[in-house]
């Protein structure tokens, strides 16, 4: 299939993540699944990293169904913010479930708690999937405050962040905080394909 | 049931002690019958309960007034009971409350008997000490008829037991008392306030009783009219009737009698 496309994406992800403490990715929804594939392949190839994956776009179950190898990885933990609110009551030791995407403080607490237990020999990286999903459940101002707060705290602990935003769901607010709080913005265009 | 039939063939009645009421009942209460008297507040049911005690060999079980208070009231009306004995639960109850009060005052004494370590151990054990056995007033009631053999037992009132025991427990005891009453061929009056124990329980009581009398007070303009109704009479449908009554210095006076047939 479009292996060159995935490889190309992986290359861009790799470069951005290694150099920058906070990366923002703005992508059209048509490229979302390609991005996911590239991201998961990249994550599974890096044993020197520890990943926390914040799932707001879709439930953890769906993610591991698509990328079965992700559930076998020992250096990734998931925080699922949508299952409980959707009435899904599954349990998985690899995943922390949060009752609602509006429990922003709880999300921060859980993220920091997971990283607290990770040794310094691993590069700690947080994936936020996605900021635009978060803004569906919360006022923009609150998402801004959350993101600012999160970036401040993760930087203090040398945790890198990799935040996704779907172009069609974005407004000026999200756009502004992405640009303000990220060291590097990756903007994918359909023309890129 | 069979025992009741035996009594029916003897067709013996016991006078209530109130002539007009005997008339309304066409002779009195059939021996072996259990009679429930329901009274709404203000119906002077407590006067009736005492007036019933004048005729015959009576055991009066009193829960709210002491024996002395009952006798004082009877004397005030100038009644002379033929033979009356008492089971004075009111006095027993106030004694038991009083002794508990006394116990409470001595908390410092209690405390000094216990070592602190012991107390800490008890408090950490999580085990509640068994509730101290209180006098069983229901048992006192059901045993009271066994020693004497009265013709009439008047229980005034069931309200007391219902405030202390579950309805099931009370019903069980009453069933036993009813059977004993049949065997004794006596009459048993149970007095209960109407409308405070729930409709279901009232139905159950009415179902259990052979005869149900009901005292009602109805306000008509600025005056109150009092009615005594025979609501139920087992095997004697024609006895269902109603009478207006008043209270004067002689007690209950039944005025106008009306049959509902």
């Amino acid at each position: 299939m479009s292996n060159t496309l995935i490889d190309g994406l992986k290359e861009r992800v790799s470069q951005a993540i290694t150099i920058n403490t906070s990366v923002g990715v703005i992508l059209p929804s048509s490229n979302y699944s390609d991005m996911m594939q590239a991201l998961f392949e990249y994550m599974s190839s890096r044993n020197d990293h520890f990943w926390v994956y914040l799932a707001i776009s879709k439930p953890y179950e769906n993610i591991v169904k698509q990328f079965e190898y992700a559930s076998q990885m020992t250096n990734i933990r998931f925080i699922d913010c949508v299952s409980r609110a959707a009435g899904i009551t599954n349990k998985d030791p690899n995943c922390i479930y949060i009752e609602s995407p509006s429990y922003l403080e709880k999300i921060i607490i859980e993220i920091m708690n997971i990283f607290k237990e990770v040794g310094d020999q691993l590069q700690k990286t947080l994936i936020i999937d996605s900021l635009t999903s978060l803004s569906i459940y919360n006022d923009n101002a609150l998402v801004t405050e959350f993101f600012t707060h999160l970036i401040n705290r993760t930087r203090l602990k040398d945790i890198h962040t990799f935040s996704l935003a779907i172009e069609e769901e974005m407004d000026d607010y999200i756009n502004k905080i992405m640009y303000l709080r990220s060291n590097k913005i990756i903007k994918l265009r359909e023309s890129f394909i | 049931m069979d025992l009741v039939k035996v009594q029916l063939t003897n067709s013996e009645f016991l006078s209530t002690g109130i002539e007009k009421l005997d008339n309304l009942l066409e002779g009195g209460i059939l021996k072996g019958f259990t009679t429930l008297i329901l009274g709404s507040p203000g119906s002077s049911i407590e006067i009736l309960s005492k007036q019933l005690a004048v005729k015959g060999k009576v055991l009066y079980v009193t829960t709210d007034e002491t024996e002395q208070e009952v006798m004082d009231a009877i004397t005030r009306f100038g009644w002379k009971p033929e033979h009356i004995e008492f089971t004075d639960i009111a006095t027993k109850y106030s004694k038991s409350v009083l002794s508990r009060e006394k116990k409470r005052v001595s908390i410092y004494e209690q405390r000094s008997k216990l070592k602190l370590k012991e107390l800490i151990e008890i408090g950490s054990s999580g085990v509640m000490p068994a509730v101290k056995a209180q006098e069983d007033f229901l048992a006192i009631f059901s045993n009271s008829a066994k020693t004497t053999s009265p013709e009439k037992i008047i229980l005034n009132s069931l309200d007391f037991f219902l405030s202390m025991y579950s309805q099931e427990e009370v019903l069980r005891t009453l069933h036993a008392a009813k059977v004993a009453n049949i065997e004794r061929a006596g009459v048993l009056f149970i007095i209960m306030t109407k409308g405070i124990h729930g409709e279901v329980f009232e139905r159950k009581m009415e179902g259990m009783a052979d005869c149900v009398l009901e005292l009602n007070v109805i306000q008509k303009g600025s005056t109150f009219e009092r009615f005594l109704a025979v609501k139920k009479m087992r095997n004697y449908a024609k006895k269902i009737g109603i009478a207006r009554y008043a209270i004067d210095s002689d007690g209950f006076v039944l005025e106008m009698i009306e049959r509902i047939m």
Partner: protein
Amino acid sequence: MTNSESYVYNQNRIGLNENENAKSSCPCITGIDELDQKLGGGLPSGNTVLLVGSSGSGKTTLSMQFLTNGAKIGERGVFFTITEPLFKLTKNLEKFDFYDKKMIESGMVNLIDLRIISERLGLDAEKYTVEDASALLEILKDIADELDVKRLIIDSITALCYRLQTKEMIRDFIFKLGSSLASMNCTTILTSEVPPNEVKYSQYGIEEFIADGIIFLGDVDRKGDLIRTLQVIKMRGTNHSRTKSAMSISSKNGIELTPLLKSRV
């Protein structure tokens, strides 16, 4: 009447202040990091703190965490429960990682059911007389002294007062409790149950007068989701933060705090 009351009241206040000076300045750490930070190290040692919240707000959990964290650094504690029986209390506790049965077995954490004690002493479980209340207070103090505890919890002061019949009795009891606690060498949490969505710190309106500090557990509504909050309303002897924190309760970490995001809540 009014005169003698204000006299009692003043005496208590003076008593508390004197003790405050006499007590060591080393704070009594709660072991809940963010709370200790807020408090500038911990609860001031020897203080009496009113922990206020509606039912289910986390008062019992926070108190227990305070007690077990104390045990971990060698400070013995006692928990007097009034509403919840011990089996229920321990059953809930066992769900939390901060709880270790060994703390009970070693006597570092003591759980005592005040209802059982008052029952054993022949008190009416629902109603206390003035003497009952005073006697119970003395017993409380004696037990705390005997066990030599540094941390003491009464859960809840509301349930204790509920058993007193009149406002005067409650007032009298609260002030006696205040001077009793002030004379003890331990840091105390009194839990106070208030109706939900009400900004008041106690059921009877006087419990807060004997408290050196008030911590309020509440919640804020965010688009229909309730977020638990914790706020230090007052804390004598510290320069504490008054900001509202969001509070999380989890089996793994018990109670945790993080700054509350406030935008357009």
